[in-house]
Structures are given as C-alpha cells and as structure tokens.
C-alpha cells in the first residue's frame, strides 16, 4: 500500500468516525465539537486532491467560522440544558434504513459507472490560477456571490434581531 493510500484511509476514517459522533451523540455540544475533526479530515482529502486553496478556505470558513456560529447558536438556545431531552424522533430506525439505502445506492452508482478519465494534466492550483479564473471566466459568479452574501446578511439580521 502506498503512502498516499495510507493517508487517504486515515483521513477517511477520521472524517467518517467524527461524522458518526456528530450524528449520534446525545450531547449537542459534543456533536458540534466533533464537526471540527470531520471538517479537518475533509481538508486533508482536498489536499490529497491537489486543491490546497480550497483546503485553506475549508479550515478558515468551516472549522473557524461556521463551527463558531453553531456553537454560539447552541449556547443561545438550549445550551447544555437539553441533556435529558430525547434527541431523535420516533422514526430513527426508518431514517437509518433510508440513509443506509442512500449510501448503498450512491456507492453502487459510483462503482458501476465507467467514469471517463479526463484528458489534460492537472495544473498546479495556486491561488493565482484560481484568481485568474474568478476574474476572467467566472466573473459573474464572483460578483453574484457578493450579492448573495449581502442578501443573506440582511435576511439573517432581520430574522435574528429582537423586534422591540
């Protein structure tokens, strides 16, 4: 087994194991804390896929910002007080079956399809290459994002602010 394969399996194991903690833990703060190793595992996978810029963004936004937001939201609502409360609804078994069926379906599709290996070599995705792409081909996406950000900022403030 090559070094890359070992690293891949380790990262996949970290991602999925902490993912399992996220979805099964009875303590909501443990779930949120387990999100961090899961996101970091995905970061490692991005690096294996030669996407280091995306990996940096993943840490900055997911691990550094979204998790903080989630932790804040937990502490502003139930916090740790919801320990005794049931965390899963009555359809846990059905849900597990659906999720398992979904996983099987996706895996079958992924393994049975003959993916055409693309032509061309993978360029080194430096921030510069990404920047070129954003400012040239994907300029509309780039400017559109800022509008989306503005709208979601306004919407979220409008919703979260106490009206008094």
């Amino acid at each position, binding site marked *: 087994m090559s*070094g890359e394969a070992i690293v891949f399996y380790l990262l996949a194991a970290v991602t999925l194991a902490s993912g399992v903690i996220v979805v099964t833990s009875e*303590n909501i*703060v*443990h779930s949120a*804390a387990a999100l*961090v190793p899961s996101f970091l595992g995905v970061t490692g996978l991005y690096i294996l896929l030669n996407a*280091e*810029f995306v990996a*940096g*963004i993943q*840490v*900055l936004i997911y*691990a*550094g*910002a979204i*998790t*903080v937001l989630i*932790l*804040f939201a937990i*502490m502003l609502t139930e916090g*740790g007080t919801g320990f005794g409360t049931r965390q899963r609804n009555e359809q846990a078994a059905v849900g597990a079956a659906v999720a398992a069926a979904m996983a099987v379906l996706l895996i079958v599709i992924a393994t049975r399809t003959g993916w055409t290996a693309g032509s061309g070599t993978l360029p080194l995705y*430096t*921030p*510069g290459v990404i920047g070129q792409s954003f400012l040239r081909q994907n300029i509309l996406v780039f400017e559109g994002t800022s509008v989306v950000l503005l709208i979601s900022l306004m919407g979220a403030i409008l919703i979260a602010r106490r009206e008094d």
Partner: protein
Amino acid sequence: MDWIRDILRAVVGTIIIFSAVAFIAVMFGVLLERKVSAWMQSRLGPKHVGPQGLLQTVADTIKLLQKENIVPTRADPIIFASAVIIVPLAALLDYVVIPFGTTRSGPLIFRDLNIGVLYFAATSSLVVIGILMAGWGSNNKYALLGGLRSAAQMVTYEIPIGLVLVTVALMAGSLSTVTIVNGQARLWYIVAQPVAFLVFLIAATAEVNRAPFDLVEAESELVAGYFSEYSGMRFALFQLGEYGEMFALAAMAVTLFLGGWHGPVLPPVLWFVIKLYALIFVFMWVRWTYPRIRIDQMLNFSWKVLIPVSVLNLIVTAFFVVMAHR
C-alpha cells in the same frame, strides 16, 4: 530512502520550533513581561532565582508540574481535556509559515506554503474553537462568560487581520511569506502601509486578549476568563497558547511589514529576533500603559473604525498597485 529522510527532517524541525517557542519565546516572554511591568512601575520584578531572576519562569514551571491534577467533577471531561490541546497546538501551527531568516541554501522556514498567509489566518481561527470549548467544558459561569466574550472579540478582530493580510498580499502579488519578505528587500512595507501596520498591531493585541482588550479575562470580574478552571500544567499550556499566539502575530507583523530578516551588517536571524522582540516590547508597553476598555467599545472599535479603515486602505492600495503597474 527519501521519505525516511523527509520524515526525520520534519520531526526534527518540529521539535526545534516547539522547543524554541516554548523556551525562548514563552518562558522568556513571561519573564520579560514581569520585568517590563516592574520597570514601568518602578519595581524590581523577579530577582532571586538565578542571575537577575532569569530562571524564575523555569522555577514556576517546575512548581506547576508538581501541582495536583484537578479536573472539576461537574466539568465535561472530554471537552475540558481537548480544549487544553487545541489552544496551544493551533497557536504553534502558525509557526509553519514564518520565515525566521535566510541561509546560503535558502530561507529558514519550516515550509514555504503556496497559500502562506491564508494558512496563517486559517490556523489562528482554530484558536477560537479551543477557547469556546474551554469555556463551555469547564461548566463554570466565569469561564463560559469569558469564553463567549473571548470568542466574540477574536472573531471580530479576525476580519481586520484578514483585510490587512490581503492588502500585503496585494503589494507582494503572492500569498507566500517568503515572497512577501523578498519583496521588502529594498523598502519595508511599513513605509507604504503605515495604516495597515497600525490596524494589524491593534487587531493583534485584541486577538491575544491583552490589555487594553483584556476585558475577556478581566481578573476583577471574570477571574481568569475561559481558563478559570484550569490549574497546574493545564494553566501553563494555556499560557503557552496565549504567549505562543502573541509571538506568532508579532513574527507575522515583522514578516509582513518590517522586512522580515532583511537588515544590514548583522546576520538575518538576529535581525528577525531583534525586530520580533521590539514588537513584543511594544505589546507589553501598551499593556502596562492603557486601561481596560468596555465590551461595547471593543466591538464598536473594530466594526466602526478598523474595518472601514482597512477596507478603504485596501481600495486605495489596489488603485495604486494596479495603476502604477500600467
């Protein structure tokens, strides 16, 4: 066997950087803090352990090692234990991209990453998670309040730091720290970017929760903030995290604005260390001079002063960089 050599080099490099940060930066930094504060208040400071009190922090660390190992029964054991690893580790991870000097065979840096400053921003944002976990895991009212305040403060001041990093990256045309330092061979960026330097310095002070931004661990109201419940060696590890982060930010300021290792006559590494300690002295000077500000002033200052100023500064810089290039 190339890969064995690589692994060995990485491990040795890590151990060197960690020991240097722990002993030279943090232990000496704590001593320096006490000496500087004593000097500013016309006291003598630690004087008895070793020559001129030089070994005071070593003695303190040995004392902390022998303290009882106390985890409060009401605390959440897993979160409580992981926070104490995350905070110092996230602070120390910053040192990967800091160029300490240069030798004939190339710059003295652990690894010159393509996304250098972005990596720096990403790892320092991980500290916030550790602090929130420490505050929540302690199940202590002071700790939780301090943790929430710390997190609010650190995320607020991450934005101006990010904007300043972008401004410098724009000047250098690269995110790699080595390229940024090389770009300052003739002129340090502080000359062209005094505003950005000031913003970075203020935001860095807030980022490491030092006075005047120490309202999150204000002794008189919050005991010690998020690490109130951590005693003995765990307390020392939080100190490692805090001082490690302070030195990392100062080193980043040196890299971004003060020309890194560049300087006449003296060897490069020495120049870097001199600049680093000069900035550390400024941090300490500020800490022992200014009173603590209130939380609303702290937040207002970032959102209504620092961020608009740094956005404006970025636009002006972009204008000059792009127009000058034509």
